[in-house]
Every structure is written in structure tokens, then in C-alpha cells.
């Protein structure tokens, strides 16, 4: 789970940094002069080390973005409109208020597990955050629902079940209760 991996990486690196600070503070109990040349040499090494780690991080992650250049053609498109304070989610295009209202109250859209699904997400008013939560309540994907734009988010669902959509972009006083739902079968 990428969130926990990131958390442990953070704990590790931050823990190391805190340890360095504590060690440095403790070292002042036994004061002595330091050799600046050695210090500068150490700094050079540290800079190279950090730069190398960051370059490695970039190499490992830059290609992995949610802006897919899939060669796969999705099996299904799902249309999403965010509006204060509900998501309209439908297998048919949502082009006006009536279709949006119908989509917010209709039977949840069904998508097929294992197939590639494309969500076309927009907003009819302010920015919203179309954020997909798995049946185990983990955030697995998201994109912004921005007025005037349609964002295309492709997901291949592995786990069947009911997926909830929460809004993750502050959109007004009903932000926390804005939601949507669809099923993966």
C-alpha cells in the first residue's frame, strides 16, 4: 500500500534527521574545535549523497503518473459531475442539471472488475475533488473536478465491491457530506 510505504520512508528519514540533531546537541557536552576543511568535505559528500538519492527517486517515480499513456482502450466510460454537494455518476453523459440530478439519485453505476474504466470528471460549479475509496476505505485514485474542463481518470479495479467517492477539495459548507457511489462487479 503506497501510503504506508511513504509513511515508513518518512519515519525512517525523519528519524535519522532527528537522531542527527539530538546527537549534535549531545556533542556540545564535550566541546572542541572542529576542522572546517573536514566539515566542508563532509558537506560535499552529503550533497552528492542527497542528490543521488533524489535522482534515484525521480528515476523511479517520474514515469509513474496518473496521466496514462495507455495503449489499452477502456472497456467503459463513466461520466462524473461534481456540484455542491453531490457527485452525479452515470454511464451516460451528464450535460445538464436534470441529468445531473438523475445521476445523483439513480442506481449506482456498475463497472467490471479487471477491466479498464475511464472516468470523465467535470464540475458544474466550483472545484471538487473526485476521490475514489475502495471497499476497504482506502483512497486509491483521485482527480480534480474543475469547471470548464473534463479530466480523464483511468482505473483498473481489482477488488469487487461498493466504492465510495468523497470530495477532497473544499467546496463549501457541505464539503464533508459530498459523496458518490458506484459498484465494481
Amino acid at each position: 500500500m503506497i501510503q504506508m510505504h511513504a509513511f515508513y520512508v518518512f519515519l525512517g528519514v525523519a528519524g535519522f534527521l532527528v537522531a542527527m540533531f539530538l546527537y549534535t546537541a549531545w556533542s556540545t557536552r564535550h566541546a572542541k574545535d572542529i576542522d572546517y576543511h573536514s566539515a566542508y568535505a563532509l558537506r560535499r559528500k552529503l550533497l552528492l549523497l542527497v542528490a543521488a538519492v533524489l535522482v534515484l527517486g525521480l528515476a523511479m517515480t517520474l514515469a509513474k503518473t496518473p496521466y496514462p499513456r495507455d495503449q489499452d482502450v477502456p472497456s467503459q466510460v463513466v461520466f462524473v459531475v461534481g456540484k455542491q454537494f453531490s457527485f452525479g455518476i452515470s454511464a451516460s453523459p451528464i450535460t445538464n442539471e436534470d441529468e445531473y440530478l438523475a445521476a445523483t439519485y439513480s442506481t449506482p453505476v456498475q463497472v467490471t472488475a479487471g477491466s479498464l474504466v475511464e472516468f470523465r470528471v467535470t464540475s458544474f460549479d466550483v472545484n471538487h475533488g473526485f476521490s475514489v475509496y475502495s471497499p476497504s476505505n482506502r483512497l486509491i485514485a483521485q482527480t480534480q473536478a474543475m469547471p470548464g474542463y473534463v479530466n480523464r481518470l483511468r482505473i483498473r479495479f481489482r477488488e469487487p465491491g461498493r466504492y465510495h467517492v468523497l470530495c477532497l477539495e473544499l467546496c463549501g459548507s457541505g464539503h464533508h457530506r459530498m459523496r458518490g457511489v458506484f459498484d465494481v462487479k
Partner: protein
Amino acid sequence: MRRGLGSVCLALCLSTPFYGQPSFGIRSNEAPNEDRYVYKALPDIVIQTVATADARLSTVWRDKPVLLTMIFTRCAGVCSPFLRSLKRAAADAEGLGRDYRIVVLSFDPQDSAADMDRMAQSLGLKSDPAWIFGVASPGDIRRLAAAVGFWFYWDPSVGQYDHPSLLIAVDRGRVLRMLAGAEVPSASLREVAQELRGKFVSSYALAGKVAFRCFEYDPDRGRYNLDWGVLLMLLPATCALLSVAWAFSPISRRAGPP
């Protein structure tokens, strides 16, 4: 008894399109909405050309993506101008033959493969391997039409079919895009051609009058170009540079408080 039989025959004749001209679908003033059909699977029908008696449509789209359209050869209206416009736009868009092919099918049961071949010849496309002109069985045509919202209506008063002009981009048997209209704009076809090549545009702007957009999608190169809004984005840094120039100018430095 004979009168009853005659009435039945008359009723049958009246309910059946004259000379066997079928209509199909729901006639509408609006073109089929692309969004309703995107990623839908197309039926793998059998097509006949002068070269082949029974080629499957899937053998074509498995080889390369396809732009599919349906016309009829006796058309006195939009079909020929539409095909000519498609020919021009495809020449502009580049990639025809290399990245995709165009399949033109007739929905008119009276058209034969030879009729379609003659049509190709009239357009100067007979020997172009990137263009496939063919026919299919009425049943297959109806299945295909249903899959993409295409309709055709026989109007006996003018002896012509009324139908939309539709161009369907097909990749691996699924609808990728649909363009409707008698004229095929080159820019639209370039965009479609990009998608057929596998370019994925992760977002697109909805049409509408908006001041100072940041980016405009360029279908020619398949990427975003900077638009006027970017000038506004450059303004803060420009003002910062000007501030530095002002603060550190020799005049300011001399004229400051003692």
C-alpha cells in the same frame, strides 16, 4: 376472401418500404452523441468488397485502427461531398495508411460491392489501399448502426435516404471517437488521428468563452501549447525582476535615505 387477402397484401406492401428500402433507427435532427457510444464494442460483421467476398471487420481493425463511415451510392445529397471532405482532411492529418485506414460501408441493401468500387473510382480512391469500400448484409448493417446510434430513413417522396454523416474512430473494436457533420474539419480529424495513434489527452477543456486560458491543445503535435493566460503567469516574475532593477539601480542606491 380474395378482398381480405388483397387487403392484407396491401397492408403488408404499405408497411414494408417500397422496393425493399429499409429504414432503421430513430430519425433525429441531432447527431448521435459521441459520449453515449465511446468505448462501446462494435459488432464484428462480415463485409464484402470487390476483392473479398467475406472479410471480417475485425481483421481490418486488428491490423490498424479504423475510421468507419456509412453512406449509400445513390445519394444525391451529402455523401459524396462528405467523402471528399474526409479525403482532404485525411490528407491534412497524415498517418492514413500508416496509422489507420478508412472503411466506407453502404447501408443501402441495393448497393453492391461493385457499386461501392465505382464510387471509390469516382473519388480517385480505387487503388488506394488505405480506403476500403464495401457492403454488408442488412442485418449486419443494422447491428452496426445500432452500436453507434446511426439511423437511416427512406423518404419515398424524394427517393432518397435521410441519414446523419458520421465518422467513427475504432480502435481494437471499440469506439474511440465520433465526428458528426457533413464537413470533416481537418483539425478535428488531426485530433482523432492522434488518439488513434495512441496519444492520450488526460484532460480537455470544454468549449466556452473563457478569458486567458493557460493552454490550448494542439492536435497537430498532440500536445498543449501555451496560450495567453501564460503571459499573466509570467507577470509576477517580470515584476519581481523590475523591482530588483529599481531597488538595485544606481539611482535608487544613491538616492536612498542617508
